[in-house]
């Protein structure tokens, strides 16, 4: 009897760990990168998803009054949730929305956009996640609102909520 209880406890313990890991799979990236000290986005260059052209972040940012950089990926479930908000934002405002496609496969990314629509003016790619880490991102999704001098005005960790969208619209007006 004693042995059975012991047996049960061990089994329950491992089931618990299993559950935690299983749920944890949907919340990737526990890695915490360096803090952004100077509150200004580091310049980076990357390849555009569709045209394969090289773009420097500054070229994109300087030409618009405000730019929203959204880090997303086709395998990320919360990105799917926030996508409608981004679509909404791109239809209602003329905000320059730039996507940064994080650790993704090209085919999957295009499939994702075909399915849910493309709110981005440009999609830069980050196949190794190096750009995102150097930007100080915590994971996907994550969104930066910048002015034309690369200053970070707002940073949203996790999917954008309705309140976030209203805040963004308020700022850019």
């Amino acid at each position, binding site marked *: 009897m004693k042995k059975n209880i012991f*047996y049960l406890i061990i*089994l329950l313990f491992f089931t618990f760990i299993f559950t*935690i890991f299983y749920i*944890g*799979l949907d919340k*990737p990236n526990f890695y915490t990168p360096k803090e952004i000290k100077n509150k200004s986005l580091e310049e980076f260059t*990357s390849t555009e998803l569709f045209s394969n052209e*090289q773009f420097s972040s500054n070229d994109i940012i300087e030409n618009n009054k405000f730019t929203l950089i959204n880090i997303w990926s086709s*395998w990320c479930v919360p990105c799917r949730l926030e996508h409608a908000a981004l679509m909404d934002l791109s239809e209602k405002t003329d905000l320059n929305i730039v996507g940064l496609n994080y650790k993704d496969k090209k085919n999957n990314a295009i499939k994702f956009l075909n399915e849910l629509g493309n709110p981005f003016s440009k999609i830069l790619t980050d196949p190794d996640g190096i750009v995102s880490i150097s930007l100080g991102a*915590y994971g996907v999704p994550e969104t930066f609102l910048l002015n034309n001098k690369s200053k970070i005005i707002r940073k949203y960790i996790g999917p954008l909520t309705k309140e976030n969208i209203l805040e963004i619209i308020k700022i850019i007006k």
Partner: protein
Amino acid sequence: MISSHIGYYSLLLGFVISVSLLFYSIFCFKKNNQNINQNIFSFLFMQFFTVVISFISLVYSFIISDFSNATVYNNSHSTKPIFYKITGTWGNHEGSLLLWLLVLTLFIFLFIIFSKKQPTKYRFLSIFFQQIIISGFFLFLLLTSNPFNFLFPIPNEGLGLNPILQDPALAIHPPILYLGYVGSSIIFSASLASLVQNNINREWAIHIKKWIKVAWFFLTIGILLGSIWAYYELGWGGFWFWDPVENVSLMPWLCLTALLHTVIVLEKRNLLKSWTLILSIATFTFSMIGTFLVRSGILNSVHTFANDPERGIFILLFLFSLIILSIILFFIYQRKENTSQKKFFLISRETSILINNLFMMYFLSVVLIGTTYPIFLEVIANEKVSIGPPFFNKLLIPFLTLFLIFMAVGPKLNWIKDNYKKIKYSRIVLFFICICISFYLIKKTSSDILFTSILGGAAFYLLFVTIKEFLNKKRNTSQAISHFGFSLFILSILFNSLFSNEFSANMKIGQELIYEKEKIKFLKIKTFDKENYKSVIANFEIIDEKKNIISLYPEIRIYNQPNILTSEADIISTVFFDKFLVINLLKGGEIFNVRYQTKPFMIWIWISVCLISFGGILGLFKRH
């Protein structure tokens, strides 16, 4: 194109052989065959052979830059040097899993060759358990991470290998590490087999000890290589960051080290049977947990390849099936140890080994909790925390002092029972002298003096005791070398962390700065075009008080595919210190961020780890 076909079908064939072996080995076991027959041996060879063929085809696809293969397309580029085309084979998820499978099949093949003296039934069962693992990995590879996926239309050019992976130390780091990681699988299968056969005794201990040593040796060297790579390539100037991925390689190592010691008690005194088993099972479980944490994308670091939750779920299910299988087997077959005649005495060699185990388990729990706690907290409380070096240092270092003392005393004790009256006053005096030496050396630094000098003293004590051991004729050389290496290791790290200094500034070409009696001159930069990157090499001169001039040439590499900047530090290593200089490009390209570090005894950290592992492998060739 054709090589991908060959690779894929030979993998399929390998899987079929694996499944047949699974049934065949159990069939032979039931039929009570007296010998391992030729059939099973050829099956094992065939299985190994199919994986070799498949691995060679993948390497070949990488060499000829066959971009119709998705793995090659995602991780290679035609302008890459041939060496990195080859090493790129295991620089990605799919290829590295194929390598993992290669090592798995190699190990069971070797195991059957070298275990001829063992009972036949035990060998059949070992094959059976190992085939469970192998089939699982075959399935994993074929279902979620096939390295031979086709792309159509065929792209003209590949995406390129992550430049920070283009480094010689990193090229051999995965294969060596895998020999250790996967080597623990054979220990897992063999101990489950001997559990079922009730075969855990002295002979088994002698036999399995060799495999433990092999796995331990490769795991140690593998971790060392990764560490060296981080020091040279990442440009952070450190060698261990308590990064989750480093931690997951440390966990099986701690477990294996505990096992390495426990199995000696089993060999000499036929005790601690269940504990040996639990450690054997735990070691491989930790290897698998490591694979899960790294490959599923639940943690993010330089080791994370493209994320795919499907893979995570597969490994998770597989991992827990193995855990449940071993728990069930353990509860069915575990037998009570007859300890009535074999008493444990407080002062004896076996108690000291138990103490070693206790420490190892403590270190293991700290590392385990530090690594997985953020995951638990995020899932349960939706809170993000980051556990960094302070946590590990605070919890580990105080215990290290005691650990070092036990390491010096333990091996001196007799088996079964010893007497505390043997304690010599000279030893106690020596210990206090050691503390004084370390106090004298450390007193100028700003750290917590009492604490660090006792730690340093304990390390010095172990150092002297092991040196004296070399003069002893009845010595255990392999143990003495490893323990000596460990004391050296702790001392080098201690002095390294106490006396390192760092200077960081933004400098222009031609500028001079003075930092703590040293003058740093930024002379010039030169640019070169290399095969797949543009190289910017700067020239610095460091002039010290005595007008000695050291020239340093740090480099910035601008890779074309993918477009990434990497900084290559220039490091001058001498016996006493490393001079480490790394530059980073700032905006505009005229001003550079310069980080200059002096790191004492860096080279001794590498040397001491080599000594530790050398001591371990030396025991393998010792006659019994």
